[in-house]
């Protein structure tokens, strides 16, 4: 729905709906936090939308500036690794040379239960 309203009363800009924001927060684990964050997002989308003004009929899309470069192929030799201690130095928690992480994936709570959603102002 365009121009929707979230539970705290903020009117959201057109096209960037509450559902989209919630979806983005789940996917990228970002926190838009307040109206300024949302506005910044809206402006970024507007800026990118300018691309639609270019006529690209008959033009092959380019997805990398590297497209004319040769992809370098490496020989199958073992040249790295064996630096367990160094790598574990960065870990906040470790158990016997394993990195420690929380159990499984903890999903973001549903929208209704999230306290920080657009609550930053």
């Amino acid at each position: 729905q365009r121009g929707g309203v979230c539970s705290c009363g903020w009117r959201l800009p057109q096209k960037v709906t509450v559902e989209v924001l919630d979806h983005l927060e789940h996917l990228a684990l970002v926190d838009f936090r307040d109206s300024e964050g949302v506005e910044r997002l809206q402006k970024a989308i507007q800026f990118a939308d300018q691309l639609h003004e270019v006529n690209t009929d008959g033009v092959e899309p380019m997805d990398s500036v590297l497209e004319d470069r040769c992809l370098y192929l490496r020989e199958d030799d073992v040249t790295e690794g064996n630096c367990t201690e160094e790598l574990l130095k960065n870990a906040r928690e470790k158990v016997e040379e394993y990195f420690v992480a929380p159990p499984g994936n903890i999903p973001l709570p549903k929208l209704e239960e999230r306290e920080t959603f657009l609550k930053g102002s």
Partner: protein
Amino acid sequence: MLKYSAIEILAPWVPVVGLEIHAQISSNSKLFSGSQVQFAAPPNSLVSFFDASLPGTLPVLNRRCVEAAVMTGLALNCSINKKSLFDRKHYFYADLPAGYQITQQRVPIAVNGSLSYSLCIDNKMSQMVTKTVRIKQIQLEQDSGKSLHDDTRSQTLVDLNRAGVGLMEVVMEPDMCCGEEAAAAVRELQLILQTLGSSQAVMSEGQLRVDANVSVHHPGEPYGVRTEVKNINSIRFLAKAVDYEIQRQIKELESGRTILNETRAFDSKLGCTVPMRDKEGKQDYRFMPEPNLPPLILYDAKSLPANMNHQQVVNIDWIHERLPDLPSVKRAKLVERYGILPEHSFTLLNEDGLSEFFEDVIKQTQMKPKKVIGWILKDLLSYLKKHSLTVKESPVSSFLLADLLNRLEEKEISSTAAKQVFAELWKGEGKTPLEIVKEKKLQLIQDQKDLEQICQTVIDGQENEVMAIKAGNRKVLNKLIGLVQRETQGRSNPVLVKQLLEKKLSE
């Protein structure tokens, strides 16, 4: 119960099975980094800075992995894409430190192939049918690390040794209809990969992982909602998981419920599939081109540029010329060369090392291959299975078996005696067939006069039987043969005994 009567019972429902298979590439180092590929090493010892996704590191493609994918694509009759692209597939998981996997979602390295596999119609292996499954594509991608779930302490331990190892994902179209077909297709793929050497494909070491996509529908109607089944650890469990899921879906639909498009895990202990907690809801992977890798260009004899560094070139034709004989070709050659049945060659190739053993025996004996095959498949193989041994672990070498078969060919022993000798050889005490024959006095009586005397003795002692035979009852002759065998303690050639008795009785 015959397989087809099972399908008749399912008649209103058509099961549809597709497979996504991840095969770990057999290489020294990883797909995009120079750390080693090895099973069961100390945790996080085979991890480079790139594998740990430390900032500032970049992927560098391993040539050997490209060659492995091309070989596999050619063996599966695929079109090799001379230009393929790499993409990022984003999702969060502790064993994926970058937060994305580098894969080939838009344009993979190989597409549109096929795999032929064989099935026995009944359980006796006397009739085989050939089926084909289409290969949608093969793509190169990174493996993730390993998570060890410690539920008691509510934490996950992460080992990144496997993170970044090269994988070939082989996607099989939903052309299969049951667990047996899925298992046979995967088995054939496994044999092909092992023959090529592109993957060792050992499922128990995680080098070959299979996810099944299963749905059911009524004939003539559109395909039903499919579920994805993961956590299948062997080919046997693959068949069970697929068949269970088909039955589960049929039961749900017949009870008026619907099938959720979800991911389920196979529980091998309970023999059923259960929903997977972490995979609820549709995933949005936000695919994007991998900005750090230009397109992968492959060449063939025609397109090969003149003055390019050959180390930087992967030539499809060069690889094609050097492909080894695939299992299907090897089987056909065995049938043609040795006159054995297709189902025999199927078993020979299905057991690691068995076809080589068979050919070694053939080289060392004058017994005809058609007779040798019986000894290989009935005697050797059943002993191996009974003691859970591989061909390599056989206490009876091809040399010893050939020696035994030669004694049989030379009519030094009867075939019953030969089986006894085989059983002795199995004990692996280092004795030769000749030694065992002498020890157990199994040699056939070679002196015809001796044998004639024994026959005469038997005839003299069996007046009634002799009269019956002379009156026309030929079957009684077998009793006399049996008596001669008993007299000679099994050391007489039954064919010769029959001839001698018949000669005497006609006098």
